[in-house]
C-alpha cells in the first residue's frame, strides 16, 4: 500500500509527495518547518485540507479514530492513570478486542521491547527510555497501516537515545506498514530511514535517499545537520566540508572564485578543531586548528575572508523535481 499525500494545514504545511509500501521516511527541517503539523494532520489530531490516499481510502476524510494510524507523540502522552500494560492494551480494547486478549497482546509487545517485567508500572514510575518504549509499543499494538513518530528520541539521555535508536530501527525494518519519523537529528534520518523528506517553511525542499540528501543538501538547514556548507552558485548548488574552508584576515591571494567576506558570529570547539560560524552571504562554517584560531584572533565580530578551492567542492544541479523553494 502506497500513500499519496497532498495536504495543507493553513499557515503550517503544504506538502505533496508519495510514500512507497513499507518504507521508513524521516522528516527533517528547522523548528517551525511544519514537521509536527504534517504528522498530526496525518494522524487526524490537526485538521487539514487535501488528501492522503492509502489503499483507495482518503485518510483525511476519516475521523482520527478510524484511520488505523499509530502515533507516537512528542512527550509520549502515556495515560498517567493506567499501567504500562493498560496503556498498550488501550488501543486494541478501544477497537473491540476483549480485555484478556488485548492484555495478552499488550504483554507480547512489552516483551518484544524488553520491558515485559515493567507491565504493572505506571508511566510516572518508568524512566524516559522505558516510557518511550511503552509509547512505541502502544502505537504498534493497534497494528496500524501507517506509523507516525513525532521526535521519539528527543529529550532522552544520549546513551538511552542511542540504544533506542538501534532498537527502533530493528522494529521499523520488521514493520510492514509505512513509517514516518519526525526528527531533528541527522543520525536518525541517516541510519533508520529509507528516504528523507526535508521540510522548509512548510514545503518539501528535498526528498531523497539519505545518501542523496546528505551529500547534495539543498537547504542550509540540512547542510548544517550533516555538517556541510551549501551555497548557490548560478544554477547549481555546491557543497563543501568545513575543513575545506580556508580562513584569512587579508583578501585571499590567487583570487579563487569561491570566496566570501564576513564577520565571525560564533566560535566553538568541535572535536580537535575549532568551528567558526561566519555571517557572510550565506552563513558558512569553517574548521580551523586551535593554533590558527588563536593566531588569527578569531573572536566574534572579527572581519575575515573565507575561501575554498574549486577541487574541494561538490557541484550539483537543482533538480527539476523540485517542489519547494530552495534558499541555501
Amino acid at each position, binding site marked *: 500500500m502506497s500513500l499519496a499525500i497532498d495536504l495543507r494545514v493553513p499557515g503550517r504545511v503544504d506538502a505533496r509527495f508519495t510514500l512507497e509500501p513499507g518504507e521508513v521516511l524521516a522528516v527533517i527541517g528547522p523548528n517551525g518547518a511544519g514537521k509536527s503539523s504534517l504528522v498530526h494532520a496525518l*494522524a*487526524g*489530531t490537526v485538521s487539514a485540507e487535501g488528501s492522503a490516499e492509502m489503499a483507495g481510502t482518503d485518510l483525511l476524510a476519516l*475521523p*482520527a*479514530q*478510524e*484511520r*488505523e*494510524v*499509530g*502515533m507516537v*507523540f512528542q512527550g509520549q*502522552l502515556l*495515560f*498517567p*492513570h*493506567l499501567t504500562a500494560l493498560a496503556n498498550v492494551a*488501550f*488501543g486494541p480494547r*478501544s*477497537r473491540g478486542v476483549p480485555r484478556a486478549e488485548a492484555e495478552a497482546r499488550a504483554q507480547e509487545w512489552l516483551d518484544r521491547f524488553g520491558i515485559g517485567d515493567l507491565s504493572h508500572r505506571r508511566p510516572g514510575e518508568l524512566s524516559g527510555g522505558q516510557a518511550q518504549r511503552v509509547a512505541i509499543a*502502544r*502505537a504498534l499494538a*493497534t497494528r496500524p497501516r501507517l506509523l507516525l513518530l513525532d521526535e521519539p528520541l528527543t529529550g532522552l539521555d544520549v546513551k538511552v537515545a542511542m540504544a533506542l535508536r538501534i532498537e527502533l530501527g530493528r522494529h521499523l525494518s520488521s514493520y510492514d506498514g509505512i513509517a514516518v519519523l519526525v526528527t531533528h537529528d541527522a543520525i536518525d534520518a541517516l541510519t533508520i530511514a529509507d528516504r528523507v523528506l526535508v521540510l522548509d517553511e512548510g514545503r518539501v525542499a528535498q526528498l531523497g535517499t539519505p545518501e542523496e540528501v546528505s551529500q547534495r543538501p539543498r537547504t542550509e538547514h540540512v547542510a548544517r545537520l550533516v555538517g556541510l556548507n551549501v551555497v548557490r552558485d548560478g544554477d547549481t548548488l555546491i557543497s563543501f566540508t568545513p575543513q575545506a574552508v580556508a580562513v584569512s584576515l587579508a583578501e585571499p591571494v590567487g583570487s579563487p572564485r569561491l570566496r566570501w567576506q564576513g564577520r565571525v558570529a560564533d566560535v566553538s570547539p568541535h572535536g580537535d578543531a575549532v568551528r567558526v560560524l561566519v555571517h557572510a552571504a550565506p552563513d558558512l562554517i569553517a574548521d580551523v586548528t586551535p593554533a590558527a584560531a588563536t593566531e588569527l584572533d578569531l573572536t566574534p565580530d572579527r572581519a575575515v575572508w573565507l575561501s575554498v578551492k574549486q577541487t574541494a567542492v561538490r557541484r550539483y544541479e537543482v533538480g527539476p523535481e523540485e517542489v519547494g523553494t530552495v534558499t541555501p
Partner: protein
Amino acid sequence: MRDPLGRPPALLLIPAGLATALLVVPLVAMVAATNWASLPDQLRSEPLRQALWLSLTTATAAALICLVLGLPLAWVLARVDFRFRGVLRALVSVPLVLPPVVAGVALRTTFGRRGLLGEPILDLTGFSFAFTTWGVVLSHVFVSLPFVVIAVEGAFRAAGREYDAAAATLGASRWTTFRRVTVPLAFPGIMAGLVLGWARALGEFGATITFNGNYPGTTQVMPNLIYVTRQSDQDAALALSLVMLLVSVGVLLALRDRWLGTP
C-alpha cells in the same frame, strides 16, 4: 525555618492574621457558648434527627444529580468549540452570584403549581415540586450545579486535550475517551467539585425555604430548623449549629487526604 528571601512583611502578616481570626473566632465562640449539659437531650430530639436526615439525603441526592447533569455540561464547556460557549458559561455561573432568595422566587415561578413548567407537569402527572422533598432537592441542585460545573470544567481542562488526541489515534470513540481517560484524569477535581456542591446544598436555606416552605419531615432541612429554633430557644439553635459544623468539618477531613490533594 528562615526564609532566604527575608521576613514576610507586617503589612501582609497583620491582615492575614485578622482574616484568620475573622474566620475562626465565630466558630470557636459558638463551641464555647454551647450548653454542654443540655446537649445530649437536644441531640435526641425528633425534629433534629428528622431535619439532619433530610439535609444529608437531599444534599447527597442533589450532589448525585449534579454529577449526572453537571459532568456532561462541564465536558461540553471544556471540550466542544462552539460560538456561544462564553455566553453559556456566563449563564451557568449566574446562580453562583444570585441571592438564594431570588433563586427561590425563580424556582417558584418555574416549578410552582402555577409555574411555567410546574403547571403543565402538574396537569400531566399530578405532581408538583413545590413544598415537597423533591422540591428541596431541586432547589439544592439549582444552587449547587454551577459550583460543580465550574469546578469540573477546570478539572477537565487541566486533564489536557492532548490525551484525548492520543486516545483518538488509538481508535477510542469520544465516549470511550471520556470514560477511560478524561474522567479518571480529572477524578480529584471532580470529587472536589462534588464536595463543594454537596456542602453548598447542605447549607442551602434561602432558595429552599422560599420555594418549599418549612414543613417538618418533608422540607424542613437543618438550616431551616436552626433558623426557626433560634427564635425561641437560643441553646437549642447552638446545639443544632454545632452538629452542622461537625458534619461539615467531618466531610472535609474525610475527603481531604483521599481526593482533594493538598493537605
